[in-house]
């Protein structure tokens, strides 16, 4: 096994004397602080665990809510809850399980595992992990707090307007939902962006895409789907909150809006979301089955194909949640067919798993028990799904408890059971200890039987005609006994889950110490110490197989002895490989930032913004938006050649340069990935504009556009010139040319300021009445979007100028301008599209 920086010679001062010294030195650099400073931790292992533990806490909360529901429905004519409280409980059960449990816990698992599986030492934007965690935590707390106030959202977890509008939901419930969920989604997006970049750019040396563990493929797809899928919901939430708070009629028919726009934006997110949950769970199955079958996954290529196809199709399916809103028959047929196409990639995976077991020698361990449970429940959910797809049958059972049962079979079977299998599988890695096989089996069987008792029976209740979402029912329909059985089984299931949770909690203290790689797995995460150290690996290996630990059982030992790459500590930096996105060839050394308060403070400031928006203290919200912005910018200050980043760029002879000394490092990739998310937001906005324009029943287009085209074009020219200046500077840096660098940055900032001023002018002179017509409200949102992005580009360019003066950026550290210029490019494209869509098209086509 060769590695490019290991020509160990006796005179090499950095060559560690022994593995233990190396370990201690690495611990010095990577170790976690304790006490209050634990809030500054950016390490993915710690944060991944925090995500998962927090997710489990919310799972328990969501579970308690479901117990309340089952108590209310256990017997007819119950007065345990009023209909109002019941609506709050059901809405929060769905919301908590979807947004605060399912997505975050899977993200947490990915955050924890991905770097370990791909042979990296951390995720590529560690501070972003921390920001994401605190946004999730604070958002979740704010949202849950609404229940304590008895002000929880009650318009359903899908928040259909006008029911969720200020007129029909006058309380704070919907605001809690919209603001809290948007806050939590910052976390999902952060995780999405950094996981994409981590998988694409920080795999260890030689790990080409086709040698990547299959789990990484699933997570890559999940992360990309989050990046594309969440922005539509963020836009929808922002618009609905604007409507509720200040009365901009985006969804209100009388003001020219359309409630269906909310449904489109919601399901543009909501359908991919089902697969965002399902794909990682399927990834767990695809990881575990080969290990327990003792042979490689059959048809790796087929599975990758299935993953990619699922990802694409899922974005074409949102309308199938809206078949009943009255859309054209042709569109319906198209979306019907597309919905059914998803069956193909799913079936491929199921049969790949079967074939792998068939051709292997399976062992039946506890994780496999959960996989078996997954298989039975998920297939059952799939079969009832096919029944529901049969239109005439759908008429009979749609909106009855049959659908509730089906949905839980798919979600619990498709997500929870694989997750449990995964937890039991990786538990020895998390803790270094084995859970109790006995309690584990009891927990499984109680959960499995309780689940089927609850929901298998519920199919029948639905067939007898019991509708969904009713808070009580009369005696005499023949539903009583089935509801009672469902409720009892529900409590059995809870007991099972409690047992599992207790088992997991206890094993951290009492579990038998696990032997190394207890399941005889093939992937790199098992080359970690158990539990893992903060830096994961003492040295980073070169990989030339999909199954490193099977093909080279000695690898964990040699890695721990520092016999592979980057076992250098004298520089005091947190380092790992940056590799080519496809081939896995080493391109640079990525140096990661250390622990930092900024993410915590930024998240805290955002939490204050969220709370002040809820309490309608808008001035305070404004102040804290600025404070959060300052924190985030201050955070970005500690990059490049800053003393806290990498002031010294020395690398060992033969090693590639530090990423801040190149121009295509992970920051560029992160910015590009973020631009995809931003672009998805922008396209959703454009969709909204054209949708309202063409479809909204009472849309009013003014005779003359209120926007001055001349001013907007002038703004666009200023911005394009500014971007041109940036481009020239970056091109210069690429050929080692830095004349007038600082001046150039200030110049582009000035041009940016001109654009911002002109856009502001056109906004102020347009005389918009955004609370009167949706047309004006949409224009306002578009212009504010342009203003925000213009201002951001301006500030970042000005900061680059300052940083050149400080010596943090320049020929010796040319990395950041290459990142900032991407924002400029994005702005130029979107601004001209915006001018065309809002300013030119209405003039050409007319109302």
């Amino acid at each position, binding site marked *: 096994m060769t590695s490019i920086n290991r020509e160990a010679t006796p005179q090499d001062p950095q060559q560690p004397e022994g593995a233990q010294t190396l370990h201690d030195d690495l611990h010095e650099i990577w170790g976690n602080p304790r006490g209050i400073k634990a809030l500054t931790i950016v390490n993915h292992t710690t944060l991944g665990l925090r995500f998962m533990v927090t997710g489990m806490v919310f799972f328990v909360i969501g579970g308690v809510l479901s117990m309340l529901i089952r108590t209310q429905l256990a017997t007819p004519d119950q007065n345990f809850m009023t209909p109002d409280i019941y609506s709050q409980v059901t809405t929060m059960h769905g919301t908590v399980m979807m947004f605060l449990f399912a997505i975050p816990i899977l993200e947490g698992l990915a955050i924890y595992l991905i770097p370990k599986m791909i042979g990296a030492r951390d995720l590529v934007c560690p501070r972003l992990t921390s920001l994401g965690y605190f946004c999730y935590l604070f958002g979740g707390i704010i949202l849950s707090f609404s229940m304590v106030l008895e002000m929880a959202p009650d318009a359903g977890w899908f928040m259909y307007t006008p029911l969720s509008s200020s007129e029909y939901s006058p309380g704070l419930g919907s605001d809690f939902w919209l603001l809290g969920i948007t806050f939590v989604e910052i976390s999902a997006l952060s995780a999405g962006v950094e996981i994409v970049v981590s998988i694409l750019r920080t795999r260890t040396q030689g790990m080409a895409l086709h040698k990547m563990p299959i789990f990484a493929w699933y997570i890559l797809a999940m992360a990309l789907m989050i990046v594309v899928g969440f922005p539509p919901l963020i836009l929808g939430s922002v618009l609905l909150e604007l409507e509720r708070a200040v009365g901009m009629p985006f969804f209100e028919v009388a003001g020219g809006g359309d409630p269906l726009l909310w449904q489109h934006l919601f399901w543009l997110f909501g359908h991919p979301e089902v697969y965002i949950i399902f794909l990682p769970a399927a990834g767990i199955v695809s990881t575990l089955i080969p290990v327990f079958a003792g042979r490689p996954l059959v048809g790796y290529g087929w599975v990758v194909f299935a993953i990619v196809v699922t990802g694409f199709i899922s974005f074409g399916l949102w309308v199938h949640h809206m078949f*009943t809103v009255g859309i054209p028959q042709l569109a319906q047929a198209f979306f019907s067919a597309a919905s059914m196409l998803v069956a193909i990639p799913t079936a491929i995976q199921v049969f790949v798993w079967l074939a792998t*077991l*068939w051709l292997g020698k399976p062992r039946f361990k506890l994780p496999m028990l959960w996989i078996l449970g997954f298989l039975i429940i998920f297939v059952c959910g799939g*079969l009832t799904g096919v029944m529901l797809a049969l239109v005439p049958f759908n008429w*009979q059972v749609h909106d009855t408890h049959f659908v509730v049962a089906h949905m839980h079979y798919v979600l619990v079977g498709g997500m929870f059971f694989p997750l449990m299998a995964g937890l039991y599988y990786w538990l020895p890695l998390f803790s270094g200890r084995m859970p109790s096989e006995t309690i584990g089996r009891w927990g499984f069987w109680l959960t499995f039987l309780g689940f089927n008792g609850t929901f298998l029976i519920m199919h029948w209740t639905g067939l007898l005609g019991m*509708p969904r979402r*009713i808070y009580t029912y009369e005696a005499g329909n023949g539903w009583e006994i089935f509801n009672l059985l469902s409720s009892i089984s529900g409590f059995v299931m809870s007991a099972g889950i409690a047992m599992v949770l207790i088992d997991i909690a206890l094993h951290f203290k009492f579990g038998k110490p696990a032997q190394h790689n207890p399941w005889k797995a093939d992937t790199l995460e098992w080359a970690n110490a158990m539990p893992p150290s903060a830096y994961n690996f003492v040295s980073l290996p070169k990989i030339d197989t999909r199954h490193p630990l099977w093909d080279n059982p000695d690898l964990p030992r040699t890695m721990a002895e520092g016999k592979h790459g980057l076992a250098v500590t004298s520089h005091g930096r947190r380092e790992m490989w940056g590799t080519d996105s496809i081939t896995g060839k080493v391109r640079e050394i990525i140096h990661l930032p250390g622990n930092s308060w900024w993410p915590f403070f930024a998240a805290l400031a955002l939490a204050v913004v969220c709370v002040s928006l809820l309490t309608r203290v808008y001035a305070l919200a404004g102040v804290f938006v600025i404070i959060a912005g300052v924190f985030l910018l201050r955070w970005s200050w500690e990059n490049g050649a800053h003393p806290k980043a990498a002031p010294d760029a020395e690398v060992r002879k033969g090693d590639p340069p530090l990423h801040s000394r190149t121009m295509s490092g992970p920051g560029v990739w992160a910015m590009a990935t973020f631009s995809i998310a931003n672009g998805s937001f922008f396209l959703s906005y454009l969709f909204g504009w054209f949708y309202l324009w063409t479809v909204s029943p009472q849309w009013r287009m003014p005779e003359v556009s209120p926007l001055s085209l001349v001013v907007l074009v002038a703004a666009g020219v200023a911005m394009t010139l500014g971007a041109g200046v940036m481009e020239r500077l970056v091109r210069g840096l690429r050929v080692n040319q830095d004349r007038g660098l600082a001046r150039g940055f200030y110049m582009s900032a000035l041009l940016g300021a001109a654009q911002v001023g002109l856009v502001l002018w056109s906004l102020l002179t347009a005389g918009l009445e955004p609370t009167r017509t949706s047309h004006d409200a949409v224009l306002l949102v578009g212009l504010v979007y342009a203003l925000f992005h213009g201002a951001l580009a301006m500030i970042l360019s000005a900061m680059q100028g300052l940083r050149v003066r400080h010596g943090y950026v320049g020929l010796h550290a040319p990395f950041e301008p290459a990142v900032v210029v991407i924002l400029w490019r994005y702005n130029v494209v979107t601004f001209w599209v915006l001018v065309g869509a809002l300013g030119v098209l209405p003039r050409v086509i007319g109302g």
Partner: protein
Amino acid sequence: MIWWVMLSFATVVLVAVTALWLYTFKTRDVSRTPAQERRVARRWIVGGGIVLPVVTVIALLAFGVPTGKRMLTLPLDEPPEVIEVTGHQWWWEVRYPGAPNGVVVTSNQLIMPAGEPVDFHVTAADVIHGFWIPRLGGKIDMLPGRINRIRLEADEPGVFGAQCAELCGVGHAHMHLYVEALPREEFDAWLAARSEEALAELATSDPAFASARENFTTFCASCHRVAGVSAGTIGPDLSDLGGRTMLGAGTLAMEEGAVYQWLRHHQTLKPGNRMPQHDDLDTDTLSGLGDWLETLTP
């Protein structure tokens, strides 16, 4: 019937897959060359992963598309009866614009002719509601500001249940619709009995209820319409209330004294409904109102 076919099919599939899965755990000693392994794997994946779902999907589409088409409101040689249904929080307004003696309006009951296609034009007055008569098929959303159309046909006369199919707020569970299909002649008679004149005659003719009518004008008229007495449109039209089978959108069966019960206890019977509680009115006033309204049986 279709249900039993599907149930047995589903059970067979479930048992087969589970058995297959468990069978793989049995220790077998088959040694295969890599080429053989690839062949076996390909057979599994192509057979189960592609052929199986494709065949199923085609079968489903072949079955589903023709049925879906029937519900489109395509032009017919003979224009069908049109019934307009509007969802309110939490009751149904039903209008017959094609009735021979002017528009007929009723609430919380939908009487339709059997044996012929009927076009429903549905919309909502406040939030989104769901129009759906399970036995007749076709669910369609009722959206504020928009009219959705659907064509349904009851083959035989009969009574069908229906309930709002889109979460519409606190009263969602209490938003039932009584649906009955009548033979054409009976339906025509039903419509004729509800002409403006006939209903007004019914409401105003009996002098015994003069004071009830007066109380109605004072306390109820701003929200409710009774033909010949009042013209409120905020709450359900009550012109033929006595002739309905249920009260409060399916909350209470229409029996003697039911209207009084409703007036007295409606916030308990249907919590959160939009009608103010009339605790200020004494029993005589309320029962007088109830007695009168129960006589409105065209």
